[in-house]
């Protein structure tokens, strides 16, 4: 098992009801596995799109990126900076 920090931002934080949490996933695990677990633990996040943008340790990644104990996964609504 690996414990992974999860951060929610903007609308996704409203859906989750929090902006930070941690989930446990069986290893080997990917970002996609973390998101699947998040949808179970935070039912409100089921309203996120099927493949939300995600970052692993502050870099955008695809859902097949592998996660390790202590990593930080962030779920990012569509970006709108500027």
């Amino acid at each position, binding site marked *: 098992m690996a414990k992974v920090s999860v951060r929610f931002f*903007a609308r996704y934080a409203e859906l989750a009801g929090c902006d930070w949490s941690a989930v446990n996933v069986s290893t080997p695990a990917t970002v996609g596995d973390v998101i699947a677990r998040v949808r179970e633990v935070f039912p409100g996040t089921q309203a996120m799109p099927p493949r939300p943008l995600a970052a692993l340790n502050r870099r*955008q990644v695809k859902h097949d990126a592998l996660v390790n104990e202590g990593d930080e996964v962030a779920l*990012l609504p569509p*970006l*709108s*900076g*500027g």
Partner: protein
Amino acid sequence: MMHLTRHPIDVGDLLAAVQSAERGGTCVFLGTVRNDADVTGIDYSAYEAMTVDEIERILAEAHERWPESRVMLQHRLGLIPAGEASIAIAAAAPHRDAAFAACRYVIEEVKKRLPIWKKELSANGRGSWVEK
């Protein structure tokens, strides 16, 4: 200079950070909160640590492409009233072509890559996330 601020942006500080006697062309881009429909302001939030990392990567890429240029940017967060700037980019280079190109490169990458979100606030007190 900090890349993120919660105060009004001072363009003079940005200019001072990029201008020099060797750089004959300076270009400034300002992004300003529009008063679309009944929007009174926009509340900007960010994944701040990743935003700072990403800004530094974008500025490093601009420097690789236009080695004689110097580019600085500042993004404002928090509630910004319509009419005030949310972002400022200053790019200076020996000649104007590189200054314009570097400035354009940075704002386009900012739009694609920075983990920043906007909530538009209306006169009726409602807020709505901008997700386009």
